[in-house]
């Protein structure tokens, strides 16, 4: 059973818990519609001279779930940093929802970032704030009123299954729980797309799998997900779109791919 993005938007509020259910719930992105993200001949050379990305072309349709794989130093994080406009491309253009990031005014940048949900390997939670305040942080930064903050945070905490832990501090949570808080923070403002840079990198396999379920659920609700990862098991099991980067170049882009190229089966195993 397959769904289009429009079907899913209608079912956005529906919650799926079991593995079987969300495996059914595979969002089929519409590759013919206008892409939400598009990289056009993007090069990135750092001031140190490192060529982190070389002639990257990538199209991400709305509702896509995309794994970015490749060995350490391949350029995955660089691609993520370009996407959130922490860095600008040296050459080429990046379009998000039809707007070229390189030409976006600095003044507009905060508003652009508010459309994105970001998740990192190291969670980036603020240790001196409670779980509630961490999740509410994005909304506070946007200057949202207290009542809206309260209901949105409660909803996000429910989604990640952490209701009741609001007054705890991040240090008292397990790694998996901390990442859930980070995901709640990424979700709380209902972003159009989620960008995650190795979100399961610091977690054990069982926890990683739980976190991954969360991302799938978020995607099933209609959000586009771009995730850089090293987690071979998960990538191989889910058989979603896989974009492999090697030495700054896109080596492979499979709609239903595996972590390693099936033909050559390279022995390199990224850490």
């Amino acid at each position, binding site marked *: 059973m397959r769904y289009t993005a429009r079907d899913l938007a209608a079912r956005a509020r529906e919650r799926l818990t079991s593995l079987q259910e969300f495996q059914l719930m595979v969002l089929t992105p519409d590759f013919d519609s206008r892409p939400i993200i598009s990289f056009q001949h993007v090069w990135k050379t750092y001031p140190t001279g490192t060529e982190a990305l070389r002639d990257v072309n990538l199209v991400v349709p709305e509702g896509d779930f995309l794994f970015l794989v490749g060995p350490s130093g391949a350029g995955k994080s660089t691609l993520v940093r370009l996407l959130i406009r922490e860095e600008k491309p040296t050459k080429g253009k990046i379009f998000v929802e039809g707007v070229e990031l390189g030409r976006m005014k600095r003044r507009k940048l*905060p508003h652009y*970032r508010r459309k994105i949900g*970001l998740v990192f390997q190291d969670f*980036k939670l*603020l240790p001196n704030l409670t779980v509630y305040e961490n999740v509410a*942080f994005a909304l*506070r*930064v946007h*200057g949202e009123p207290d009542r809206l903050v309260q209901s949105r945070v409660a909803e996000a905490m429910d989604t990640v299954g952490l209701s009741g832990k609001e007054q705890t501090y991040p240090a008292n949570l397990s790694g998996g729980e901390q990442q859930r808080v980070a995901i709640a*923070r990424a979700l709380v403002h209902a972003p159009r797309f989620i960008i995650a840079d190795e979100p399961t990198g610091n977690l054990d396999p069982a926890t990683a799998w739980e976190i991954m379920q969360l991302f799938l659920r978020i995607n099933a609700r209609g959000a586009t997900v771009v995730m850089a990862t090293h987690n071979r098991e998960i990538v191989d099991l889910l058989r979603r779109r896989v974009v492999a980067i090697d030495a700054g170049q896109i080596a492979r882009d499979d709609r239903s791919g595996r972590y390693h190229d099936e033909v050559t089966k390279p022995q390199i195993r990224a850490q």
Partner: protein
Amino acid sequence: MKLRNLKFALSSAWQSFWRNLAVSLAAVLSITLILILGGVNLLVGHTFSQVVDGFRLKVSEISINVADGTPLQTVYDFRDQLTADPRVATVTFITKEQALVDFKADPNNAVFATQISGNPLDAKLQVRVIDLKDVAAIDLLGRRWSGVDPVDPTNYQGDFVNRMLELSSWLGLAGVGLMAILVVVSVVIVMNTIRTAVYHRRKEIEVMKLVGATEWFVRGPFVIEGVMTGLIAASIALSLLVIAYQPMVDRFHTDLVFIPLSYDPSYITFLARDLLIGGALLGALGSYIGVRRFVRI
């Protein structure tokens, strides 16, 4: 800026101030010292300008002494000539008799007055000029006048006036120079304090930027913290200066009797305004510069 954002900025500035209490207090203390220096500078400047203004008033009036036996008509003619002069404000004729009465009335001359017989004093024309720089010209006019007392023509002390004016302009320049140095030093101090605060909160700043905070949202709390530091320092400095102002003036007044120093309570309002605005601006500027590099998205 939305009220909610202002609330957020205020509360996080307050937290940051207390979290780095040692650094914050060191900054408050340094800025207090600087503002005290600045305030003393203002007070000294004000007191001196009062003194100079007093002198100006005094030296802008000269007496042209009339030789005994000069016909009254000659004196009147000269008086009318002076009155018509555009540089002259007022001319008063003081007769010998009036001069003697005035002389005796001055308690400083009490001993002297009992010993004089007859009237050794000259009649005089007291001329007040509009602009101090014209005193010399009027003085020359008086000295060339036919009716002037050749022995003691005028009471004009050109040298003294010129030196006074020169001194006051040098003092003004030194005051401005000192102020400039104080401003630079205090901006650097605030800048470094805020850098420490920024360092403690670099993670928060990073997250803020990633979730879409505007630059002003990130900067706001730090600028407010800087302003807070400046205002606290200004209040302390102001209290100390207000307490010390009158005793100091009295003290110097007894030491330097020949300089008519005076305590001017009305100036305290201006001092308070200058110190508070100055402290707030220095704090804001220092923290703006201190945080600039870190808030760039």
